[in-house]
């Protein structure tokens, strides 16, 4: 009898911890704009700790300079060469390549409907959309893209954020989400057409980044000019955007 109660105790503890963790996860993910609490305590519910702020700020400054001195001028020149609709197609092509990874992540998260939808999008866009250059699935079949990443999968499995991390060249992330990005990247490299050598992969990634930037020219500078502490503004924006990406409830869907 006595031994049994000893056995039960850790089980109860685990259940208790699990319930608390899930409660926290649900609390952390559901940001209800209609409740006053989300305004009274805006930081606590979605924010992650930032213990390495001095390091992050340094990387932020480097990224900022890199963006202003290299990326934006290159993307501006590129945008003058290629018209916007062609650049959209290139963006679609890169996005389409990520669909299988997204589908697997949906499966790992138990979102079976989304997994099928993503795979369906991949099939439709690869065939009808000419290697994913056009988003036929979105426009003709009304299958809107869904968000999924390995960082999100880890979060569903109960892995915490760790801490806020500004990654060189990549920008805002957290320890968990950056690990997820690396895993997603490695998974994508197994089937992407440029997995031959590092240089080709880097060129493809660079092209993708320049293309993406060319479609959002001026936005970065504008947000910066509106903010008081752009480091804090982008950190907060990242948290908010991510909590929307991770929210797959009906209320969040457009």
């Amino acid at each position: 009898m006595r031994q049994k109660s000893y056995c039960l105790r850790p089980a109860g503890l685990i259940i208790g911890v699990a319930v608390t963790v899930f409660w926290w996860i649900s609390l952390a993910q559901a940001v209800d704009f209609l409740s006053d609490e989300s305004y009274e305590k805006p930081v606590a519910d979605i924010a992650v700790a930032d213990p390495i702020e001095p390091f992050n700020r340094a990387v932020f400054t480097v990224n900022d300079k890199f963006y202003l001195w290299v990326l934006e001028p290159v993307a501006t020149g590129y945008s003058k060469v290629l018209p916007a609709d062609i650049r959209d197609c290139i963006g679609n092509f890169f996005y389409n390549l990520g669909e299988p990874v997204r589908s697997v992540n949906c499966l790992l998260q138990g979102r079976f409907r989304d997994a099928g939808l993503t795979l369906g999008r991949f099939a439709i866009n690869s065939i009808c959309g000419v290697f994913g250059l056009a988003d036929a699935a979105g426009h003709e079949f009304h299958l809107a893209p869904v968000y999924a990443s390995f960082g999100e999968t880890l979060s569903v499995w109960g892995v915490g954020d760790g801490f806020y991390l500004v990654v060189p060249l990549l920008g805002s992330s957290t320890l968990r989400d950056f690990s997820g990005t690396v895993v997603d990247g490695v998974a994508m490299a197994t089937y992407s057409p440029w997995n031959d050598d590092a240089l080709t992969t880097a060129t493809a990634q660079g092209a993708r980044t320049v293309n993406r930037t060319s479609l959002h020219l001026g936005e970065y500078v504008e947000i910066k000019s509106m903010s008081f502490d752009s480091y804090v503004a982008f950190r907060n924006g990242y948290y908010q955007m991510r909590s929307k990406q991770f929210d797959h409830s009906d209320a969040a869907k457009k």
Partner: protein
Amino acid sequence: MPQKNNLDKVTGALPDVWWSMQRKSSISSFLVSILTVFVTVFCTQSAVSATPDPTEQLRPFLKKVTETLADPGLKAIPKQEKSRRVIGVVRERFDFREMSKRVIGQQWRNLSEKEQGEFEALFTQLLQYAYVGKIDDYSGQQVQFTQQRVKGERAEVQTLLVDKDKSIPVSYIMLLRGDQWMAYDVVVEGVSLIRNYMEQFSEILRKDGYPGLVKQLEEKIAELEKDIKKT
């Protein structure tokens, strides 16, 4: 004819019923008064629950804003005047007092009436100048209403700002004031304007207090104003 018999019976019975009603008049009047109270309460309650529709109030407002932005006459006038004209329209459905209150957060109560007014004016001006660049960006984008959520006196109206090849989700967070829904936050792609400024302001408030915040606001406004005048 059974029908006629029935009718006779009813007419014959009427005086009896009448008298019995007279006898019970005190009870029935009591019941009637209760009924009246009940009906009155019910009616006022249903009047309260029949709140105006937030989307139906936002729709004409956004139409007016887009019409103002599309007005060819707006292109010719200087930027500062332009922003003043647009904010004048925006004021109709945006509650800048409520925005100020929320962006400051719990410290709002510690501010004096004068400080609250001062902050509201500064914050309004900040938004006016911060969004002035957006005015020229407008090129006929359409607003699509997707869905709304009402919870008591709060509402979220979700829209899509439809551009040529992309659409941006924009939500308006609104508060019921009397019979008018007034917006106090805009959420663009999941990022709330108020909550973003709130985190920045709370750090300034913690480090330099309210005077420090006013100083930074004034500096930012001057900086934006200089940019506006330059172009």
